[in-house]
């Protein structure tokens, strides 16, 4: 069994914390995030704006910029040769050979992620030749054309400047670019927010097809929970910089163990079910500068108890495959999924 088998551990994130240093003190944007990503797996990362999704993904790839600082934790990368590297203490220079070769990213803003003054081909060629100096300019350009064709872009687009392409085309060329060096992991930070739903669908189907062919793992960030449910093997829900629940997508959808997961689910229309009444989440996202002592979600939680206001719940295993951070899952309490308001898993979705 080689190390590149699907299912092997690829990335272990342990207690990762990221702070933003401000004049009023440090703001903890991500605190003690832990999860494991396996080869070929699609992990969805969902949460409201400001919940720390993007901060977490940039910290994963060690791309965070001042004033963001990784203040603790480990990101253990398991290489194909069996070596385990902690990315956190590495300098930029030491990470160069891992970047794009192993860890690639598709960024949120297709409009701004391509260098506006360089032809598309040149932006493929520089990274291809950086990681394979023996490759000739001509061969690299040829490969750039192949990669573009992968996501359905005509090969002759290598001669185009970014401003000569449509938004959807730019977004797909970013996906092609991410696959240039056959990476183990592609982080996709809301790759479809800038395009319309039709293009979104085209792009997602291509991503899935390529993922199946090439076998890379994906960390997929979005606030669109229904899209994630379609797409991902496992889901991680973030709230106020913490992972509050993580587990298989189906489990999280049908049997959410955290009231926030449930609330988030109920605020999106189901994709393959008659429209049921949707509910918003009352209140607003918490101020990270001034988090409550107890559970950060408690002020908005319909089922908050006295304990929730005083003691911060830890992320613990609550079922075979699911971890959640909620006092309702403490042994003596009834599970979150129960109760009359949770009708969707019985009717709506099975229809």
């Amino acid at each position, binding site marked *: 069994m080689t190390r590149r088998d699907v299912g092997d551990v690829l990335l272990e994130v342990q207690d990762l914390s990221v702070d933003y240093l401000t004049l009023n003190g440090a703001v903890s944007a991500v605190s003690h995030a832990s999860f494991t990503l396996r080869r070929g797996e699609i992990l969805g990362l969902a949460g409201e704006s400001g919940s720390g999704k993007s901060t977490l993904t940039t910290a994963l790839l060690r791309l965070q910029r001042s004033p963001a600082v990784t203040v603790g934790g480990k990101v253990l990368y398991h290489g194909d040769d069996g070596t385990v590297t902690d990315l956190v203490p590495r300098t930029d220079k030491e990470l160069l050979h891992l970047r794009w070769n192993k860890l690639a990213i598709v960024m949120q803003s297709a409009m701004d992620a391509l260098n506006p003054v360089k032809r598309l081909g040149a932006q493929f060629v520089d990274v291809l030749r950086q*990681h394979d100096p023996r490759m000739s300019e001509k061969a690299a350009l040829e490969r750039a054309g192949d990669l573009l064709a992968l996501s359905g872009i005509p090969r002759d687009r290598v001669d185009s400047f970014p401003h000569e392409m449509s938004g959807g085309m730019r977004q797909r060329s970013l996906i092609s670019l991410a696959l240039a060096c056959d990476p183990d992991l592609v982080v996709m930070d809301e790759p479809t927010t800038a395009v319309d739903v039709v293009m979104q669908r085209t792009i997602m189907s291509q991503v899935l097809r390529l993922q199946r062919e090439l076998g890379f793992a994906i960390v997929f960030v979005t606030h669109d929970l229904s899209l994630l449910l379609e797409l991902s093997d496992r889901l991680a829900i973030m709230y106020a910089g913490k992972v509050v629940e993580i587990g298989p997508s189906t489990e999280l959808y049908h049997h959410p163990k955290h009231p926030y997961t449930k609330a988030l689910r109920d605020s999106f229309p189901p994709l393959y079910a008659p429209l049921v009444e949707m509910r918003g989440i009352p209140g607003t996202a918490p101020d990270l500068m001034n988090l409550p002592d107890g559970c950060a979600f408690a002020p908005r939680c319909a089922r908050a108890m006295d304990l929730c206001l005083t003691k911060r719940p830890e992320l613990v295993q609550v079922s075979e495959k699911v971890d959640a951070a909620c006092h309702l899952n403490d042994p003596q309490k009834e599970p979150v999924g129960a109760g009359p308001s949770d009708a969707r898993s019985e009717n709506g979705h099975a229809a």
Partner: protein
Amino acid sequence: MTQPTATGRREVALDEPLRPESSLPGVTGARRRRGAGGRGAYFLRRLGSYLIVIWAAVTLNFFIPRFMPGDPAEAILRKIRQTTGEPPSASQIASVRRMYGNPTENILHQYVDYWVGVAKFDFGVSTAHYPTPVSEIVLQALPWTLFLIGVSTVVAWIIGTILGAVMGWKPGNRFDSWFAPLSTFFHAFPGFWIALVLLWIFSITLEWFPVSGGYDTSVPMSLNNFYFLLSVVYYGALPMFALIFIGFNGWLFSMRNVMVATVTEDYVLMARAKGLPEKKVLFSYAARNALLPNVTGLAMAIGGVIGGAVLIEAVFTYPGMGYLLQTSITGHDFPVMQTVLLLLTFTAIVANFIADSIYVLLDPRAADTN
């Protein structure tokens, strides 16, 4: 019908056949061709607008002496009479009348005549150095100014842009936080004052450099003569240094400030994510984009740069257009004065056109905005 469960995600109808963009080959092909022709068309348009500017400059030069109270041509002819002690010849009178107006002649006819004179590079004769033709005097001074301003502007721009790029790459680090205020401090000094201080320290007190002149007059003046060229460098060093020192601070600042904003752009983050070495990210992604406003700045500032050099030439008694302008003003040598101003306008327009054209080569988006 596909089973609508989350587990069935791979079978869900997300997988639809590709809708390739290549189904529109005509559209993309046409766009590509227009993009290639865009630059040429852009140059022609720019050239057209610069020709209009030149026409306006020459026309103003024609009308200004004619709208002046009195008869400037008459005043010039009187001056020639005073300097030489004899009345000017008929051809001289005609030449002066052509450049400075003849109240008895049709203005349209004069205008056409004036253009003929400009085209032939015939600007009449100098009154201070009678009867040397103005064109001869001016052409002697022009290369010195082109050399001094050309080299110092380019060098100052390059130094300022590179230093600014490095400072803006990591704003707030030690290099940036010391150099930025220091640079503002020097930028605030008037250029001629810095030139005077340099002259006083290096030429008068230390005697390292000559006090005035553009070359060693004891050496035969020829471009093939190595010693002459060496003396040009030696005599030009101090004014050149003054101009560079005055000039680079401005470029440094604008570059630094644009760079600070550019390093936060997504394509710079992307370049880092690609694992490109820092130098490459800095120069071919961040600085490459940040320098675009600096190129525009260069095009806009060239007029001012020439104006500034006029003062520097005066301070160093450098035999260029600035010094010539100064002496012609003090000597009331109107023909020379007018020609110098016209040529400085020309120089500024040409330099502007060059900087403008470079911009299109650097930014493909500029040519497409039609």
